[in-house]
Structures are given as C-alpha cells and as structure tokens.
C-alpha cells in the first residue's frame, strides 16, 4: 500500500515542470525560495538533510543583522523555513544524484525519480574537509567529529584536540568549553585565522593550548582515540598530544560532484558565476557557499539567494 502510494507520488512529481528547482535548502536556497515564491514562480527546494544547512549546526550566529543578541543557527533555519512556506514554495527531502542542465528543460535525478524545471539554482553548499592523517578513517565517529554542536556533549570532561584555528574552529572551541577545559588547538599556519573578536574571546579561557605551525601526523588509539601525533612544520619535530576527541575544522569542499560535467567550476570545484549569479549554462544559476566568492557567511548566502532568484525571474520573462 505504502509502496503504491510512494510510486504514485514519484510519478506525479516527474510530470510537473517547475519554473524553478533550487538544489539545497541552506540560507541561499531558502532565500531564493522566498524571492521566487513572491515572484509567483512555481518553485521547489530540494534538501538532502535539513533546512538551514551548515548554519543549522552553528550554536549562535552573532553577526546576522536583525538579532541584536544573536540567533541560534537551528532557530534561524526554522524561521527561514516557515517564511519560505508562506509564499508557496515547496520543500522536499532527497538526495540529487545527477543533473542534466543543458537544454531548455533541466532534469534533476534522484535514485528512483526525477524532477523537471525551466531554471535551476544550485545552492548545494559545501561540506567540511576531511582530515588526512593516519587513523582518520578508523576513528571517524569514534572520536573524530566535524560537528561540535552535534557531538560535543559526548566529550564531557574529556581531552579535546581541535584541528584548525579559523572562525569555525574557534567558535566551536568556545562552545566546547562548556563540556571540558582541556582543549588544544592545532593549526598548520603559524597564526590564528579567526576574526579578531573570536581571537580575543578564546583568550578568556586560559587553560586552552595552541600549537600553531603544526600539523596532525596521525590519530592514535586502540578502540577509540587516545592521542594524536603532531609535527611542527618548521623544525619537523614530532610530539604526542593526549586526546579523547578530535574536532576538525580545516575548511570546506563544495558539493558539486553530482552536477553536469559541462558546468564551469574553478580549480577547487566551486561554481563560477557572473555578478548576476548566472553560470556558463543557460537557465542555471548558483548561490551561496557552492560558488566562487571571498566571504562565505549566512548573510552573503542569503544575498546570493535573492540575486539568483531575481535573475531567474528575468531569465524566464525573456523566454
């Protein structure tokens, strides 16, 4: 019965031609959904995990305007999601496995169904870069984590090593202070790369240790993580740091592997757009962290979403 119902639903989906499909329900995709809904475009947002994307895992966003005391990442994601729905934009959950973006009508494929649309905004974002060190695969989920707000509570009073010292690393390091004081940052560059205000704040935790100009050579242990072996970049000196948990914040990689090969990407896989967020393919636009840009923040993603939806509206008008 259920099978039949699902099959019917899939068939139904494939017959509709949307004006716009937005791949990704983070701040860029949701904002595009708000603008497209208000422009009365028949729009669907496809989200793989949960709306809000990476921003939903941020404990507190302090630099998003309009919230003077900051806003929880998950809370903001929920508000944006409700806002999108108000304007008639649909949200569906699923994993896009491939696309056919050339031609007038664009095809978006799931494992067992597809969607057609006249225009596409790719707002699939980026995922955390995985650490490449001996033991990294072995201990994934057994001490290595990429999400402090998800897994931090499992390391109460434990020893934590944070890899990286950019914004995410320092923010999450401050978050983790509520569970443990034994926190060590290890960063390959010889200085902190986080914003100044975050650098000031982490100094309020005097027990925090920093090894800058240092890389992680291996993650060691029997069943679980017990230590990391670090190595200084300059002197090539190796030493052990005891650790129960390793939280990794060493940048991101764009989620573009499922897209048409004809789409123009830069050397790192980010989508190249013009200032109206058009890609090299007609009717295909990109917004948010997935595209080539300098500053990847919730506000710049939201801005991209608005611009991309506006560009889609103009594109469809001129058809």
């Amino acid at each position: 019965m259920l099978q039949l119902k699902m099959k019917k639903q899939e068939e139904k989906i494939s017959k509709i031609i949307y004006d716009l499909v937005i791949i990704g329900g983070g701040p860029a995709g949701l904002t595009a959904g708000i603008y497209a809904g208000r422009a009365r475009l028949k729009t669907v947002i496809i989200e793989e995990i949960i709306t809000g994307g990476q921003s939903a895992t941020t404990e507190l966003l302090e630099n998003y305007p309009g919230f003077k005391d900051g806003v929880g990442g998950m809370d903001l994601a929920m508000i944006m999601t409700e806002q999108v729905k108000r304007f008639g934009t649909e949200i569906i959950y699923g994993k896009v496995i491939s696309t056919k973006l050339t031609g007038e009508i664009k095809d978006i494929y799931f494992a067992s169904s597809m969607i057609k649309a006249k225009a596409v905004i790719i707002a699939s974002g980026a995922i955390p870069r995985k650490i490449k060190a001996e033991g990294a695969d072995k201990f994934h989920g057994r001490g290595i984590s990429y999400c402090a707000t998800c897994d931090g509570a499992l390391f109460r009073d434990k020893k934590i090593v944070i890899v990286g010292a950019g914004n995410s690393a320092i923010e999450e390091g401050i978050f983790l202070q509520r569970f443990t004081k034994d926190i060590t940052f290890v960063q390959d560059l010889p200085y902190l790369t986080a914003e100044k205000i975050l650098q000031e704040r982490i100094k309020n935790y005097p027990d925090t240790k920093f090894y800058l100009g240092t890389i992680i050579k291996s993650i060691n242990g029997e069943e679980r993580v017990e230590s990391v072996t670090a190595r200084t970049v300059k002197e090539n000196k190796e030493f052990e740091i005891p650790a129960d948990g390793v939280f990794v914040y060493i940048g991101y990689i764009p989620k573009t592997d499922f897209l048409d090969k004809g789409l123009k990407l830069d050397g790192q896989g980010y989508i190249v757009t013009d200032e109206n967020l058009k890609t090299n393919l007609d009717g295909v636009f990109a917004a948010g962290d997935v595209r080539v840009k300098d500053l990847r923040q919730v506000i710049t993603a939201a801005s991209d979403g608005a611009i991309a939806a506006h560009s889609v509206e103009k594109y469809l008008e001129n058809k």
Partner: protein
Amino acid sequence: MAVVKVYSTSSCPWCARAKQYLRSKNIPFADINVATDRNAAMEMVRKSGQQGVPVIDIDGNIIVGFDQARIDSLLGIA
C-alpha cells in the same frame, strides 16, 4: 511494532533528519537526548562503539547515522 530509539542531540542535522523521516512514516520512537542524559550517552557509546550522533536502535539492531536503506529494511517499509 518495532521498538525504535533515536539517540541524538538537539543541534545535529542528521538527527533531525532521522526523526523527521521516522515521523513521516508514522513510526513511533523514543527520542533520547544524549546531551542532557549522561547515562543514555554512555549506553549509546557502549551499544554502538560510536561517539557521534545519531545512533538508531531498532529492536536491538544498531544503525549509525541516518542510513535510510537500513532503517527501511529493519522496519519493513519501502
């Protein structure tokens, strides 16, 4: 009816997705927050060997992460 437990924390996207999925299929489950319940956290680590959420227990079968195919097969849904 299968006994389903979801070990999760409140700010984990895959946990939210897993719970949303179970709700969409009308599967009742125990929602166990390991951030606030330390005993449950220890139980989860012991059962799964995992120190990451979500962990889903379906009649004693442990699923790590949101593995939709395994959830479907253990619950007998398509």
